[in-house]
């Protein structure tokens, strides 16, 4: 009897999780680009800047490595952009309040927003893919490794983003977090060039960032960097661990409901 009643209640409105994902994609990417086309241009060019600088400075020698770096950084940028977007929607429009007081769960909201960031960066990934096909010749296997690394970096950075966004009280603070974290994840770590380019004591600092491990895996998979199988395994472990730990911290410490 109770079971039947429950069924009836859920029958009333079949809520679609797809709709909830679609909502974030529309709000955060499609409608935004429709109304502000400059965002599309930004998406095309954003992570290419470092690629261009490194390529010119190295007289083209590091082009291929830098392309791989740009792939990874696109995912980090996408994840970190989420932080500013979430903070804006939460603090300035109170959209997050409206969503909290609705059937959408924190997980669906973040998943939708995360996907929306990837969609936002699709033009960028497309350009990078063309460059990759033209300038780096990697095996399918290496391409899969790089994709996996990108996915892990993405999970890491959206978890970090969500965590930070729940603590921000204003978009200005949000931007500060985004810039700070992007610097920590992309400037010091050797994403666009091999770690061997960094003088010794500083290499240790680089190893504090998960992007270093991500880049190392990608670079060795495509043969730019020779590392021992042991090191390769360690890199994977650290990278996955970083993502998992960040995910757990985010899940525990983020505030869907304010305190």
């Amino acid at each position: 009897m109770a079971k039947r009643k429950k069924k009836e209640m859920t029958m009333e409105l079949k809520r679609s999780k797809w709709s909830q994902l679609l909502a974030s994609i529309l709000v955060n990417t499609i409608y935004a680009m429709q109304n502000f086309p400059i965002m599309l241009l930004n998406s095309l060019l954003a992570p290419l800047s470092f690629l261009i600088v490194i390529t010119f400075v190295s007289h083209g020698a590091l082009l291929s490595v830098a392309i791989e770096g740009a792939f990874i950084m696109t995912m980090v940028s996408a994840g970190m952009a989420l932080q500013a977007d979430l903070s804006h929607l939460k603090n300035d429009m109170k959209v997050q309040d409206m969503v909290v007081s609705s059937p959408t769960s924190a997980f669906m909201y973040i998943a939708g927003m995360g996907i929306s960031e990837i969609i936002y960066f699709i033009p960028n990934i497309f350009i990078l893919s063309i460059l990759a096909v033209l300038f780096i010749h990697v095996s399918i296997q290496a391409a899969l490794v790089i994709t996996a690394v990108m996915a892990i970096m993405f999970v890491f950075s959206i978890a970090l983003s969500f965590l930070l966004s729940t603590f921000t009280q204003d978009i200005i603070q949000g931007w500060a977090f985004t810039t700070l974290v992007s610097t920590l994840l992309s400037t010091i770590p050797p994403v666009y060039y091999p770690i061997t380019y960094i003088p010794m004591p500083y290499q240790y600092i680089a190893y504090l960032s998960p992007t270093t491990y991500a880049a190392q895996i990608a670079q060795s998979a495509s043969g730019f960097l020779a590392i021992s199988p042991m090191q390769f395994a360690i890199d994977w472990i650290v990278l996955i661990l970083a993502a998992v730990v960040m995910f757990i911290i985010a899940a525990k410490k983020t505030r869907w409901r304010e305190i």
Partner: protein
Amino acid sequence: MAESLVCKNLGKTYKTGSNALRNINLNIPTKGIFALIGRNGAGKTTLVRILATELLQTKGSATINGFDVVKDADKIRQLIAIVPQEGRIIPWTTPRQMVISYLLYRGFSYKEAKQRADESLKKLDIVKYANTQSSHLSGGIKRKALVAAVISSEAKIIFLDEPTTGLDPISRADLWDVLKEMKKDRFIFLTTHYLEEAERLADKIGVIEDGKLFALGTLQELRKKIKYEYSVEVFGKGAKIKPKTGEVVTGLDEHKQIFTTAKEANRLSKELIKKGIRFSSNPVSLEEIFYYIVKRSIDTDRKNGEEKEKGDDYGA
């Protein structure tokens, strides 16, 4: 389960030390319209946000239709919808896009969301602006778009935190009509600074001041809370009128307002008619009640120096 909204010793102290809610006890049926009124900083938004599962209380508990706002938040979130006080339509969406997105968040299919969006935009008379990017719209239209989003949903319990702030008198009256229609099968929890709004719409009114619930009841019940339930306004210049009982407030231009009992108001009216003096006699308005209740509490607080911690108990 009980179709009611219950707060038991509900309290909220923010991390800043601000005591926003102190011991709120409330038990109201979740049907019709409940209006919460109170001065700036009285705790209205804090209470609404706790009930709408956005904010965690620091003391006590609250349930909606038997579901606890903390333990059963998932169930409550299926039932409720809110327009936050500072909610704004996303500047890069149109009202139609905003309403559609909100409905998608509630799990509607895109097709149904579109349909419902068009209906509610029509209801709020903003079809004309449906496809205008909202950063180009006036404040009131933007506010209406948010209200449209929420009322287009299936939610049975709707929190509106100052929904009519910034609306022109006609739009406000239109929204009142919409709310009156809606209250037939939903519960609306409303906060407002427009006391006329509470007076016209609400089946029950709560007065909150300094985090305490000072009064709760229908308008008639609230009238009984204050000493004099009638107000006689005398417009005649130089009119000499002395009530047997009551208080006389003399305003500008010798405009007199007499707060008194129903009986004395009746007697005064007869006297004024005989004298041919223009006047009006009415039951005290919510504004007057509010002023009376809140002013008295502020005065006592000032006199006592220390604020008292205890709130009153009010039942359905």
